[in-house]
């Protein structure tokens, strides 16, 4: 069992600990404030972590999950074979797939005629990427600014995914 240590009396006085906290926050304030002064910013290194977005783009990690895309074959068609793996595993159930007939060149047995992802419902968990057997769906577009004027634009289809 974890024994609770009694609080020392000097901590229970409040004031010393309050002053220590005050020292920490005001240290941050003064370092950052002086760091913004043009001449001094070489001497005092400010700890500000803000990126001046949108002027400065923040570097996005390769593992970052964003808007979806489909991998293409060499002829430009999607690698998806409409196996429903992604839509089954999707916890948000935001993927709607309708399968179509075999392609004429018989590379695959099925092709998706409709592959809709509702970006509002998507939770960006990346499970569809894990589940895909054909390496078709990816979330590495690094697209984070998804802005439209109407909500229906956020249901993206094959055309958008293959862009």
């Amino acid at each position, binding site marked *: 069992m974890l024994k609770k240590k009694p609080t020392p009396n000097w901590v229970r006085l409040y004031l010393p600990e309050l002053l220590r906290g005050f020292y920490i926050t005001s240290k*941050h304030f003064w370092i950052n404030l002086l760091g913004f002064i043009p001449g001094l910013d070489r001497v005092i290194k400010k700890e500000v972590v803000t990126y001046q977005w949108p002027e400065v783009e923040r570097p996005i990690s390769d593992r970052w999950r964003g808007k979806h895309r489909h991998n293409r074959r060499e002829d430009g068609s999607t690698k998806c074979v409409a196996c429903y793996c992604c839509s089954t595993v999707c916890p948000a159930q935001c993927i709607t797939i309708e399968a179509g007939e075999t392609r004429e060149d018989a590379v695959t047995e099925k092709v998706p005629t409709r592959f809709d992802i509702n970006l509002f419902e998507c939770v960006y968990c990346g499970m569809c990427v894990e589940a895909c057997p054909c390496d078709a769906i990816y979330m590495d577009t690094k697209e984070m600014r998804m802005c439209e004027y109407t909500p229906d634009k956020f249901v993206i289809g094959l055309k958008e995914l293959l862009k």
Partner: protein
Amino acid sequence: MNLDALLTLKLQCLWALVAFGAVSSLAGLLTWGERKQVSLIQDRIGPNRANLRFIRNWRLFGLFHIIADAVKSMTKEDFVPAGAYKWMHLLAPLISLGVSFIAFAVVPFAGPFTIRWRDVPAVEIPLLGQFFPGQTLHLSHFPVSFQAADLNVGILFVLAVGAFLVYGVLMAGFASNNKFSFLGAMRAASQMFSYEIALGLSIIGVILIYNSTNLSVIVERQGALIFGIIPKWGIVTQPLAFILFFTCGLMEIKRIPFDAPEGESEIVAGYFLEYSGAKFMMFLFSEYVELIMLAAMCAVLFFGGWQIPFVSQAGISIPLLHVQFAWTDLPWVAAHKALGIELVNLAVVLAQAGFFAFKVVAFCWIMVTVRWTFPRFRYDQIMRLGWRRILPLSMVNIVLAVGIVLVEDKFKPVIQKVLGY
């Protein structure tokens, strides 16, 4: 009553306007300053994007956010919930804002200043003369006080205003017809009780030491020197009282360690939950005015008000170090005797006002830092701190103050002889 009484009345009205303008502009700056300061504390940049598009995208560190906020809140929908007391819902923010300004009537912004000039007809003074049409202004030996009302019960006035501050909160909470608002109002009322008493008691020490309830007299007596070198500020004579007063003051204006009435994580936004647009802005603004009020009171009662250490209307003098300098020794003043000393005195008064403003801003800075350093107390912790720690401590402080006064009275000749004050 002679002419000068009426003139004083008019000048006091004018000065009230000036003080109102100064305080409200400082409060407006604080709405931006607090956000900027917290962002620096948290290693961010803070508001910096509002700009003047037509003047080369000027940003001025986000100063235009003040205007942008005002415009935004004014144009927002004014929402009154169903089942609310309509007039009370409207009156609550007005009372909060109005009352918080009133306390500045007794704050001395700078030292007393006597104009020694000739009498002039009003028409000769371009701006001021409009208020006194066709009169002769007796400007010879005309005392000017930078204080709207020199009340001899100044401290009590501030306390009374502070006691009335809770009404805006209570009315807002009651009129909103919302359980969260109601809880916030209840918390505010009970907190007020717990801390109002301690606030009054902590000031009593200061009243005893400086032997007055008049704020301008208290400030003036803080100009004395202990041991000939330490300024007799409240913080020196009553350090415990300062800590207690500051704590209770933070409670009174509902700043963060004690902001249970609005506690976002518990009761959403407390008493101003049902407010939007301009009325919400009024609550926010009154909070900043109260902040400045507490800062000004701390400066006046404990940090010498407008007193600049060792500097007076006569000159600079530090007795123990034998530094003596009279303004009349300045060559320029000696050359233009009458006008010169007048202008120097004016400059001293302005410097005092500037020093007071500096103290107030410094306290505002401290309070904002306090806000972003300490977490909110739990409600029962606030009550326990108020009744079981601060109240007994403030009573102990009164006993201490009485002891100091007695010792000072008894050994006055000895002290004067040995220590020279």
